[in-house]
């Protein structure tokens, strides 16, 4: 017993230190190469760089328009996403809207329907000339176009539709952590609903909402797919698409792209730092793990109006895009009012021969399973080390693990591309590289999810086991893991979905033998007709939906058996 006790901590410490070094290596290594490339002022093709300097950064102000575009689009998207998120969070958490449970589940779906799919669909819907909505508008007698999705506001709209569900979850969490009796006390004191909202509810919720706003804004800065599909055809660039363009064009301008990447990284880093400060200090509503169920306000006849509001968010972000894609995919030349002869299944026939469907899909599924499985194990262990172990430097570990969040995926992949190109082990262009990339960029996601579950786990449960004489490994197996199971399964699913829908990192790291789903849809978009792309996107969505459904069924059965 005693020897076990004294061996325990040092084994833990050893594991801990090793892990910290490994994680730091994976996370910092690409960033180093990114920085190196950004300071390269010599011959761009020579490796390693022949000369270093600040020239690339000095050249950045020339691209002030792109910076402005980025800020404009991100800001507009954040505002819209917050409106969607706040409205739906309020309605679903605080009113007696009908079908609340169903709507809550529906709110998660936009996360699965990627912004890319949304961008493709909305492009088909809202392109000024050819968009279905505009065609219908003109048929009804309108002039020109009623919506122009191929514009900064259009890009912001699409981004907001999909980030709205993230905002919903974050703001909902804030609302759930407010004691409802605070509002009741206000009412008792004679304040009406409006006064109560202004004087009590909003001031209490605001710090949390502000935190969510900063987080969403940082995400928008690094966002890629909507701007790629909708912006590049009309020469509208944001920083991420500009970086991509610089890397993909001929001849590529790597150092400039790297300099842009570094600046974006710096801004995002600062924002996220700001975010953590806000939620740590200014929030009155402490997230202590105690969740209240807010008392529902009876809104009477307004119930159906509110239902319509939530419903229309789901329709706009999920139903309408999918229907649009279906509609386009079965036509030869997609128009709003097709002649009978325009319908065809050829697109599906061709789609099944394309790389994107054949190889990319199976690659993505395999990669998804690998990422999720290894990722859960990895982030589970990291979470445990950060929150439950006594190893020195676990604060530092948490910081390192959260680091990739500050780096936009595309930029991170850029560093990785450079870093792994020269790595002696030939993994460049293979699925292994993508696996490493995914695991690294999804570290924050996994650690955050599992940590929140871990924190709710009472320490004394584990300690009791320790007192009973169980070793660390045994306790992990018999106490901690079973209790964590639902959280781990949720994290698995989250990582699986995230890896399959990933674009920014994959598009740069993809190789001929490692094509994956989302970038393949993008190259299809740029390399073939929109009807064909729609068919491919739908095939992939259906297959993915089936995979998710299958896994959900399996895990539900497993958790039921596990008890």
């Amino acid at each position, binding site marked *: 017993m005693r020897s076990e006790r004294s061996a325990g901590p040092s084994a833990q410490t050893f594991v801990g230190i090793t892990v910290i070094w490994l994680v730091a290596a994976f996370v910092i290594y690409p960033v180093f190469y990114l920085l190196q490339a950004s300071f390269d002022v010599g011959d761009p093709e020579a490796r390693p760089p022949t000369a270093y300097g600040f020239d690339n950064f000095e050249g950045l102000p020339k*691209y002030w328009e792109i910076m402005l575009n980025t800020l404009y689009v991100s800001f507009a998207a954040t505002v819209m996403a917050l409106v969607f998120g706040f409205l739906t969070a309020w309605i679903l958490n605080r009113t007696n809207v009908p079908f609340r449970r169903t709507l809550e589940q529906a709110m998660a779906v936009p996360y699965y329907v990627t912004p890319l799919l949304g961008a493709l669909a909305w492009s088909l819907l809202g392109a000024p000339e050819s968009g279905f909505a505009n065609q219908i508008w003109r048929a009804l007698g309108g002039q020109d176009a009623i919506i122009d999705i191929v514009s900064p506001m259009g890009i912001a709209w699409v981004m907001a539709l999909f980030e709205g569900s993230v905002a919903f979850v974050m703001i909902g969490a804030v609302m759930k952590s407010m004691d409802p009796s605070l509002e009741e006390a206000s009412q008792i004191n004679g304040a009406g609903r409006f006064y109560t909202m202004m004087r009590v509810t909003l001031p209490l919720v605001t710090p949390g909402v502000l935190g969510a706003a900063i987080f969403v804004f940082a995400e928008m800065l690094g966002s890629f797919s909507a701007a790629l599909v909708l912006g590049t055809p009309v020469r509208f660039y944001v920083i991420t698409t500009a970086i991509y363009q610089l890397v993909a064009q001929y001849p590529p301008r790597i150092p400039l792209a790297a300099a842009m990447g570094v600046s974006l990284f710096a801004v995002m880093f600062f924002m996220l730092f700001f975010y953590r400060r806000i939620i740590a200090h200014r929030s009155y509503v402490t997230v202590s793990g105690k969740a209240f169920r807010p008392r529902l306000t009876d809104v009477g006849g307004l119930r159906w109006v509110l239902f319509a509001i939530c419903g229309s968010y789901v329709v706009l972000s999920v139903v309408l895009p999918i229907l649009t894609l279906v509609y386009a995919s079965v036509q030869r030349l997609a128009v709003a009012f097709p002649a009978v002869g325009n319908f065809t299944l050829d697109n599906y026939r061709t789609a099944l021969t394309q790389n994107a469907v054949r190889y990319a899909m199976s690659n993505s599924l395999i990669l998804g399973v690998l990422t999720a499985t290894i990722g859960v194990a990895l982030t589970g262990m990291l979470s445990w080390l950060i929150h439950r172990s006594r190893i020195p430097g676990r604060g530092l570990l948490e910081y390192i693990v959260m680091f990739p969040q500050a780096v936009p995926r595309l930029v991170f992949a850029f560093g990785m591309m450079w870093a792994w*190109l020269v790595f002696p082990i030939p993994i460049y262009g293979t699925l292994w590289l993508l696996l490493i990339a995914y695991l690294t960029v999804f570290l924050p996601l996994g650690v955050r999810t599992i940590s929140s579950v871990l924190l709710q786990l009472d320490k004394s449960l584990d300690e009791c086991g320790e007192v009973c004489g169980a070793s660390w490994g045994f306790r992990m197996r018999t106490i901690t893991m079973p209790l964590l199971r639902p959280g781990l399964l949720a994290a698995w699913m989250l990582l699986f979905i995230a890896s399959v829908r990933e674009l920014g990192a994959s598009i740069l790291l993809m190789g001929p033998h490692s094509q994956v789903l989302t970038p393949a849809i993008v190259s299809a978009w740029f*390399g073939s007709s929109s009807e064909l792309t729609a068919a491919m996107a739908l095939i992939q969505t259906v297959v993915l939906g089936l995979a998710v459904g299958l896994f959900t069924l399996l895990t539900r059965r497993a958790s039921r058996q596990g008890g």
Partner: protein
Amino acid sequence: MPKTPTRRFALQAGLAAAMVPVGHQAAAQSRPVTKVLDFTTSADMAKAEQEGALLFYTHDGEAGAAAAMDAFSADFPKIKASYVRAQTGALYSKILAERSAGRFDVDVIQFSDVGTAIDFDKRGAFETYNSPQAAFYEAEFLSDPAGHYFCSGMTFAGIAYNTDKVKAEDAPKAWKDLLDPRWANVTSTKQSTSGMQFVEWYELRKLYGDDYWKAFSKQKPHGFDSRAQLFDRLAKGDDKICALAEWAAYVLYHDRKAPIAFVAPEDGLPATALATGMVTKAPHPEAARLFIDWLMSLRGQAVYQQHPDLLYGSVRKDAPPMPGGVRLRDFKLLVPSDMQDFLGARKKFNADWNAMLGLL
């Protein structure tokens, strides 16, 4: 970039007296010629099938590339043929980056402009392989020295417009008409990575001088990555005019009943030869040779010439007409003749074209 002799060449050095550092002496090969299906090949069929795979880098669109691969795999089911597509410029920088990092995954590569192929050849990256099919090609359509790459087809472009949005009498009839201010913001072209676009730029510059493109940039054209995209947008009316309308794409969309009309300006249609060749250090050398032979043969050329997503005019001596009975010689084609000048203009083209498109 240092020019590294291939392994093959190094072997020959032991036999031959002189060492030629630049280019390759095409030594006579003693490879047995067999007949496979309906064409002759010097590839070792058994080994090719053992290799079982082929990776093809091409400038084509997704549909075209997939079609070529499918056709080859249909003929040789044991060889799994796969492709990676990107426009010529992007494709070129990709393969160069890979090779400089020591990655050699590609078997055969196809560029849409000869200038790039020549540059690639200068770096010694094409494998020397004298196909038995080479007899069916004029010397001008083979590499110099022969055996590195060949012209697997020709494509040419004119002007196209959307008939719903543009009345016939207003439509441009000559290249100069594209400069009309009414076509500002509704004109599309390809990006600087396109080989075809480079040729158009070069040829029209030769015809009308630098001022032509300076004036054209005032039209603020939209640049795209594939002809499918160009015609997709044209058919739907997102653009009214396409300034680089490949005839092959026009035929495809015309068959789909898209409201598009094609204009062949009197002064001529810029045309480019596709250059296809086997790459050195190919992981599947025999399969690569088989592919080259297949592509050069009537069989492969038929696919390239007739498949709706390809429609490249064949330059084989005994090739049949293209669909619709047309032949390449029915059109007035503008092809770059002075290769050195053509190659030298590339840098200027990239800079000017990127700036015109508002790229960075």
